[in-house]
């Protein structure tokens, strides 16, 4: 007998569009953490990261409280996270594709070359219809 947890969300289908040499994307074994590295080559350059979320639990789940930690504006890098707050995922379903956009700001011509880190987390809970 397979035990289905009451609530479990996993990340799935991670991808960097038109991935370049030197870029990478992967999931932790528990599929709850996604890590990626993208290469920005000039001001105005942008990279698109996509993923989906799969509900492998037996109850619907509600995504909420997206908490990003974006780069400082002086880095020249901006990150646009997808709208995930208040998204409901039915049991045994997979979300539409979400997109993260990472950009070297066009105006940041003098931005120093280097490494810029950023992150985000989103919480999920069991969804109870009103």
């Amino acid at each position, binding site marked *: 007998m397979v035990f289905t*947890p*009451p*609530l*479990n*969300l996993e*990340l799935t289908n991670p991808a960097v569009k038109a991935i370049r040499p*030197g870029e990478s994307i992967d999931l932790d074994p528990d599929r*709850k*953490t*996604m*890590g*990626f*590295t*993208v*290469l*920005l*080559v*000039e*001001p*105005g*350059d942008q*990279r698109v*990261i996509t993923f989906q*979320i799969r509900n492998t639990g037996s109850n619907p789940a509600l995504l909420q409280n997206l908490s990003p930690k974006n*780069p400082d504006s002086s880095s*020249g*890098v901006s*990150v646009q*996270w997808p709208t995930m707050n208040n998204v409901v995922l039915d049991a045994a379903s997979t979300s539409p594709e979400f997109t*993260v956009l*990472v950009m*070297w700001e*066009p105006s940041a011509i003098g*931005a*120093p*070359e*280097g*490494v*810029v*880190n*950023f*992150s*985000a*987390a*989103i*919480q*999920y*809970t*069991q969804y109870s219809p009103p």
Partner: protein
Amino acid sequence: MATRRKNLYIVFGVLAVFLLSAIVYAALTGLLTFNGTALLNASLRVEFVNDPPTTPTIEGGVDTGNDEEVEVSASGQTLSFTVYLEEPGESKEVTFHLENMGTADAELTNFSSGPVPDGLTVDWGDDILDGLVIDAGATDGPYSITVEWDIDAIDPADIGALETRNGTDYYVAALSATLNYIQATP
């Protein structure tokens, strides 16, 4: 004694409730995390292509037995060529391709050319090349440089040295062009 045992049961019961609550909470909530890194790393480099089938050529070039009649420097930045001209009015065309080896789009500025002997007119292709944008990773061309022995040139010796190849006399001019480029504005 009975009271102490009863109190212990109460404590264990409360702890069990808290533990059960934590387990239930953990089972009914979770976190998805995203960790990203952006590497800002632009490189700028354009070169004359020197690989077949787009190695530089001279149209109507003389078979001198010398493979270095047209030569790309080791850095890929300079194109050196030798033209063999028989008489005034004759012209030779050097054809080449360019490749953006860098990770940023590049905009060509004017060639920096070597000295041009008197009696020769050289069209370096500035009207096309100056301001040309080559995308990162792209190869562009063919482009050409045209060298013409002026019809009114007085002294052929101004062109260069006289050489005889396969029974034909040529005046030989050695010329070169070096790339200049900047990062293209997005």
